[in-house]
């Protein structure tokens, strides 16, 4: 009885700290919820049928059809992923299965460096070097190439983590049966890490769709067209927002925020799926 009374004020501090920690964790849910609600409310007037079906985007006339930008976002992200996935997998496999230990650390450093190059610097390089000196005009393809370079470190580091959970016994079993290194990779490593790699690729896809500044600088800012020609100038949702915000007035601003809402929803869906896949495969990897 006395002891518990003595501990009374300590328990208050304990409770207060716990409450603070819960509040900090809850902030994640609060911010995500508020993004969804505040932005949707603000963009509501612009979110009509025309927004999703029309290809005409003209601020002076107050017509806002976002279809070409939605297409451009998906198309550039697809180009980026197609370029980035084989390269990322190759690098991840090289680092985990082939590279001698002394080479691993510098290679991981290299990828870290690539990951911290700011996207605006890639954009600057794309505009002033790639398109001026190497003849890659501003287009879907140029944006896709730049985005690929930016998502390679993300996909590689996640794929590396997953691949490293492959049990040594499975790899040794393949080698003991006379498999070459590549056969060991296809027989043991890849089947084991399939799920995690899929998740990593989807995270890269989400990142490529949301990447703004580099895309805004090199994609070409085309209006009113949907094309599959990768060399044509295009546009994507984040690029439109970044490029047009400065001179936007009222209905125009609502339309730009509506673009952000659509972008938010698409990336959230992609990330939900990716996170679920990665977490499940990580759990299985640890359990095995």
């Amino acid at each position, binding site marked *: 009885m006395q002891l518990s009374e003595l501990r009374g004020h*300590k*328990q208050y*501090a304990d409770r207060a*700290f*716990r409450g603070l*920690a*819960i509040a*900090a*964790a*809850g902030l*994640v*849910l609060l*911010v*995500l919820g*508020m*993004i969804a609600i505040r*932005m949707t409310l603000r963009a509501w007037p612009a979110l009509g049928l025309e927004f999703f079906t029309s290809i005409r985007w003209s601020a002076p006339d107050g017509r806002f059809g976002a279809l070409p930008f939605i297409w451009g976002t998906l198309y550039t992200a697809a180009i980026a992923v197609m370029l980035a996935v*084989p390269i990322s997998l*190759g*690098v991840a496999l*090289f680092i985990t299965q082939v590279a001698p230990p002394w080479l691993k650390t510098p*290679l991981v450093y290299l990828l*870290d*460096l690539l990951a*911290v*190059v*700011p*996207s*605006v*610097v*890639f*954009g*600057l*390089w794309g505009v*002033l070097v790639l398109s001026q000196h190497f003849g890659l005009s501003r287009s879907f393809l140029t944006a896709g190439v730049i985005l690929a370079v930016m998502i390679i470190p993300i996909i*590689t580091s996640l794929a590396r983590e997953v691949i490293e959970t492959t049990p040594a016994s499975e790899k040794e079993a393949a080698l003991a049966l006379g498999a*070459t*290194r*590549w056969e060991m*990779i296809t027989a043991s490593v890849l089947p084991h890490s399939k799920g995690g790699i899929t998740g990593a690729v989807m995270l890269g896809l989400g*990142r490529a*769709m*949301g990447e*703004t*500044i580099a895309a805004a*600088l090199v994609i070409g800012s085309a209006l009113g067209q949907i094309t599959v020609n990768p060399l044509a100038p295009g546009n994507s949702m984040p690029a439109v*927002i970044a490029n047009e915000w400065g001179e936007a007035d009222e209905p125009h601003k609502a339309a*730009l*925020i509506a673009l*952000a809402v659509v*972008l*938010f929803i698409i*990336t*959230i869906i*992609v*990330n*939900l799926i*990716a*996170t679920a896949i990665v*977490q499940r495969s990580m759990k299985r990897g640890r359990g095995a």
Partner: protein
Amino acid sequence: MTGAPAFQESTATRRRNDLRARRSWRTVKNQLMLGLMIAALLLVAIPLAAVLWSVIVRGGSTAFKDFPSFFTETIPRISTRPGPGMGPAIVGTLLATTGATLIAVPVGILGAVYLHEYGGTSKFARLVRFMATVMTGVPSIVMGLFIYLIWTLSFGYSAFGGALALACLMLPVMIGSTEQMLRLVPPQLREAAYALGATKSRTVITVVLPAALPGIVSGSLLAIARAAGETAPLLFTVGAATAFNPHLFSEANTALSLQIFSNAVSAFAPAQDRAWGAALTLMMVTFIVTLAARFFTARFALKR
């Protein structure tokens, strides 16, 4: 009979030689795939080297011409005017990044403490952990517009608006990296503290967090490096300025990334030069912070 073993041996040797001579498709394929992996590595190294080369060569000639004026002068208002000045942008980047750090690092650490020390596998903790991972994928431009709606519309442009947007980006990253570090703290340390009669909060503050500190510092530095290079969240929240503005909460400001973005599309060489100079400055900042993070990680690894 004496000839038989020798005969057998020679057949075996011949067969082995044959196998070696006939480079089977399997070994060729193995070599081919190794070659492709090395090619992939080169494809990663080439763009990095090319970007670094351009930034160092073109940025260096601008940023270090009559040093240190590039880092101290104000930004010329006319883009055709040659000459230095990124001082206000450096101040703005430092203000926004420091503000974001002061918000996101403590909140992120507390959130991770909840997830690992209190929540564990409870439903709420699992939901927060999952949503924090999802939140890392929210595009930075969405964060910028969100802060514009809830802050900038009411309080106007300032470095603090940028700090809020950057903090939203850093928060889930901080929670993720800190929780990983807390997981590495051996449970015996906590048990020893409880056995001495410490309360849970005291155990966390005086035992668990100090043990995980180097890893947490390293994670924070990586998050800071990423935030310092962000442009899109600042686009709607910081505004535009060409003069020094050391105030965190009032008046439009600028940042290195914003200056690179606006000068990159300029048709005039002086503005483009300033963009390269700003790019070099920004990359020096992010690289130094990243290397510091590596240093802390290395020390932590030594201790374990």
